[in-house]
């Protein structure tokens, strides 16, 4: 059964002066998929996220979300349309409680504080932060901050969730927890795009992996195929390693 397209990125190019951070990137994501974007540092993963979510205007190319073009829309409009994202460097509101943080996200769909609070409590129960709802955002551990950021994104009720390194720097147990959460999010019918360096997680949860290197897409396919591909190994480990194999 062919599923509907959630996101379509066609020919997206973003350059900063002479540096091409994204060079004609094409890919698409079906509804309900988990797609990982991997690549060495500086490959253009975060830039791509910024181009999709409206933080950078791409220099050329187009982005479609559920069939509608979102290329040059404002970030908050894209969020309202149903695309949520997190940042590589956690972005939460430090002097609000966990509940208030999530509630602020929920207020996108509700006007009344009471309704938003109820929704926020629901989300926190789902993400497993309910017990810490009265903690200040700034007082959380890094793992909980990442979880909170995901909760805030979920509270905006997205159809597509883009996670930028939500699993970096976590302990094994925390990593397991985050992976379980990502699977649970997918079960709710939310499509996920994940930028990640933690290969253990990428291999296990992704349906498809896209590899970027120096701003170009060099490979796309199921995780097991991708990691064995010589081009990918070369991108990560250098030419000599490939030859010696």
């Amino acid at each position, binding site marked *: 059964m062919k599923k509907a397209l959630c996101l379509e990125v066609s020919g997206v190019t973003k350059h900063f002066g002479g540096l091409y951070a994204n060079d004609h990137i094409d890919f698409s994501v079906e509804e309900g998929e988990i797609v990982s974007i991997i690549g060495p540092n500086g490959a253009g993963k975060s830039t791509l996220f910024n181009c999709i*979510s*409206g*933080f950078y205007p791409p220099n050329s190319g187009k982005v479609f979300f559920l069939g509608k073009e979102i290329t040059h829309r*404002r*970030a*908050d409009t894209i*969020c*309202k349309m149903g695309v*949520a*994202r*997190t*940042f590589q460097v956690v*972005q*939460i*509101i*430090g*002097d*609000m409680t966990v*509940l*208030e943080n999530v*509630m*602020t*996200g929920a*207020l*996108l769909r509700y*006007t009344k*504080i009471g309704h*938003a*609070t109820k929704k926020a409590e629901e989300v926190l129960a789902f993400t497993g932060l309910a017990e810490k709802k009265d903690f200040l955002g700034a007082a959380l551990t890094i793992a909980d901050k990442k979880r909170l950021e995901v909760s*805030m*994104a979920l509270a*905006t009720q997205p159809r597509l969730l883009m996670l930028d390194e939500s699993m970096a720097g976590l302990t094994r147990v925390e990593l397991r927890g985050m992976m379980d959460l990502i699977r649970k999010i997918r079960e709710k019918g939310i499509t996920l795009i994940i930028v990640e360096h933690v290969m253990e997680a990428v291999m296990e949860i992704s349906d498809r992996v896209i590899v970027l290197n120096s701003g170009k897409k060099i490979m796309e396919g199921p995780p097991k195929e991708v990691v064995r591909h010589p081009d990918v190994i070369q991108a990560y480990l250098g030419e000599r390693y490939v030859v010696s194999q």
Partner: protein
Amino acid sequence: MRNISLKQILSGVIAFVLVMIFPLVIKNTFAQHVMILFFMFGMMGVAWNIMGGYAGMFSFGQVAFFGIGAYTSSFLLITYHVNPWIGLVVGGLVAALVGAAIGYPCSNLRGHYFAIASIAFGEIVRTHFNNWKLIGAAEGLSLPMLSEGFKNFMFHSSKLPYYYIMFAFLLISLLVCYLISTSKMGYYFRAIKESHDVAKVLGINVVWYRLVAIMISAFLTAMAGTFYAQYVLYIDPESVMLLPISVQVVLISMLGGAGSVMGPVIGAVILIPISEFTRVWLGHKGTGVDMLIYGFLITLISVYQPKGVWGLFMNLGKRTK
């Protein structure tokens, strides 16, 4: 979510009653004058707080809104005999429009960059008014003596009506601030204060909400300006548009506690008497003494309690529980 406790309601009621009977017991007009200034600066502090404490735009140009309010109502009264109460509303709207017009191009300015731009804004408006013949330029405007009464917003025999009107204005601004702080807008302001990025990914239209904060703040500040004009009956750019007034408004809010509804009121109740009494006791020799004391207090508060005196109260409350 903050719930108002019985204790808070009770202390609010007691404060209200005390303020209401104060001028009836203490007939000293200077004391009444200090109270009026306290209300006025308290209101400007509350207005600043909506913009600075909640939405994170540290404005050092509030005096421009204050002056625009004072000038709009006075000019309309002198030239077109427009009732000051209507002038009050028009002045607020003009200030809000000017605020939006200057705020829009500053949409991406944050932190000290916004502060610098706001200082420039205040100084530009002052220089402009200093040279604008139509509104009296540097000579200022003298308001005509109208018959006393609430209708004309003018009282000659007693300060009492001014006292109660300004107190009412302060209460209105506190109500506005409270309603904002407990609504969607308040949470959105706080998100914007934290970071524009986090606000955007929560679907918040940062540019729009910042303009709303500026406009509300400008309107309330302009109301205080109209009040001042009606109270003193003479305005000129050097009395209603000086940078130190803007600075004082910021200090009041920071000292009391930026980002809390009551913070600026606490700040005003501490700082305004200090500045008025040092001015009277020490006369010209004392010029700047209030600033010395301010500076000392601000240093103390920023080192030991960045959340202001209000934050100190809150912490004490928590510890004793």
